């Protein structure tokens, strides 16, 4: 099964690989997946005082499509409002990367990672974390 051009591009030149200081109050960290399942994503976002996402980083253990999904997610997160982070849907990732059906779970994991990072940040900020909407729309 050959890979799509965009998957290859993100895999070969991953955007925003790295880590942010997870102890910072302005950094939200989401770690999802499990080693035995073959993919683990760590996604981090940094916000300014106005809840603008000014930086995003990822590290992913997983197949090329998982790496590409998380790389794309960080690209899309940068410059967004925190609230709008949750607008990123796995289906958008599937479309952008032209993922085949067997790789859809990679995009789901990326959406989960975004959600987890936002939730972590909101918890830190003491905001109502229950405001996270749209769960389960996969």
């Amino acid at each position, binding site marked *: 099964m050959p890979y799509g051009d965009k998957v290859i591009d993100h895999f070969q030149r991953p955007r925003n690989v790295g880590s942010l200081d997870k102890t910072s109050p302005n950094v939200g960290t989401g770690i999802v*997946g499990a*080693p035995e399942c073959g993919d683990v994503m760590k996604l981090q976002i940094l916000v300014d005082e106005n809840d603008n996402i000014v930086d995003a980083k990822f*590290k992913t253990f997983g*197949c090329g499509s*998982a790496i590409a999904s998380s790389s794309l997610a960080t690209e899309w997160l940068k410059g967004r409002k925190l609230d709008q982070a949750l607008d990123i849907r796995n289906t958008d990732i599937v479309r952008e990367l032209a993922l085949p059906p067997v790789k859809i779970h990679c995009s789901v994991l990326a959406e989960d990672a975004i959600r987890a990072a936002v939730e972590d940040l909101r918890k830190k900020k003491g905001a109502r974390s229950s405001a996270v909407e749209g769960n389960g729309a996969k």
Partner: protein
Amino acid sequence: MRRIYLDNNATTQVDPRVLEAMLPFFCDKFGNAASRNHAFGWEAEQAVEAAREQIASLIGADAKEIVFTSGATEGNNTAIKGVAAMYAERGKHIITQATEHKAVLDPCHWLAEQGYRVTVLPVDAKGMVDLEQLKQAMTPDTILVSIMHGNNEIGTVQPIAEIGRLCKEREVLFHTDCCQTFGKLPINVEEMGIDLLTCSAHKIHGPKGVGALYVRRKRPRVRCAPVLHGGGHERGVRSGTLNVPGIVGLAKAAEISGREMESEPARLAALRDRLKDAIISKLDAVHLNGHPTLRTPTNLNLSFAYVEGESLMMGMPEVAVSSGSACTSASLEPSYVLRAIGVGDDLAHGSIRFSLGRFNTADEVDYVAERVVATVRKLREMSPLYEIAQEGVDLKAVEWTRE
């Protein structure tokens, strides 16, 4: 782009000498080996009988004991189902082991559904069956033991001579899948007590879709019912017009392998070890899967902790290898062979099988080792697991969110 093929346990390049031997049998000597009344048939039959001799001589058998098949899947099916059908009155118990190819396990499972009793022996961490356990598993109604010689995924070589002896003592038939060792390790059906043996041409630089099944005719005379019914070819064991070019190719591939048996397996084993050493000396947290010494000369199976196998393959697209990762399989499950030897699913996902063949060189092995090391390093830089492990956290103690 330079391309390097290190997936020779999956299939091999046809040796040009094999192709050359096959070519006359397409457009010139294209007769049906069963046509008894004209020269076209005779020359085809002659070629098939010469091929039979050739295959038999490589395993110490008689030509009459060789049945040509479409490959090892068919050979295994015929051996297992054929013996099961013929010996059902004597007993309905079959013994096999956990790391067999699916072409052995699935016929056994199918028989279990038909009312046979199947024992699947476990293996140890190196992939070896335990002879004591095998002995214990044998009961008066055991009719067949099917245990492979060399494993296709992890390379472990089973003690088939000892298994053959045990089977002889108990008067149980012994079948062995020798796909990965035929033409690479010495095999003698007399010395090893083998009653049925499967091999396949495409693993030894022959064509795909042709193989041979050895069925013993003396001490004891093994009866094997056909899976394919029809014109009664191959003494009724396998009907169907013989694939003459394929059979000629199989024989030529066997002849070359037999002739090179003195030097080629040793060369391959040296390349295999060169590859392993070059990788292991430069990377930490690499595990060898399978037996450290008792393994096929072609096979090296390594797990790279903190890295997923498919991404490793994707990182070196010019190198053809295979992985036990779920992401590369249709089943979405990591390799059952690695599970059987107790490799955790996390390490199974990070496993790569490198398998060597006649056309690989030391230069290629050095290049691949370099590419593997560079790609693993790059992926570990990207791996949250590597980061967590570097922080001294035990990954097993982390609570993961399972999908």
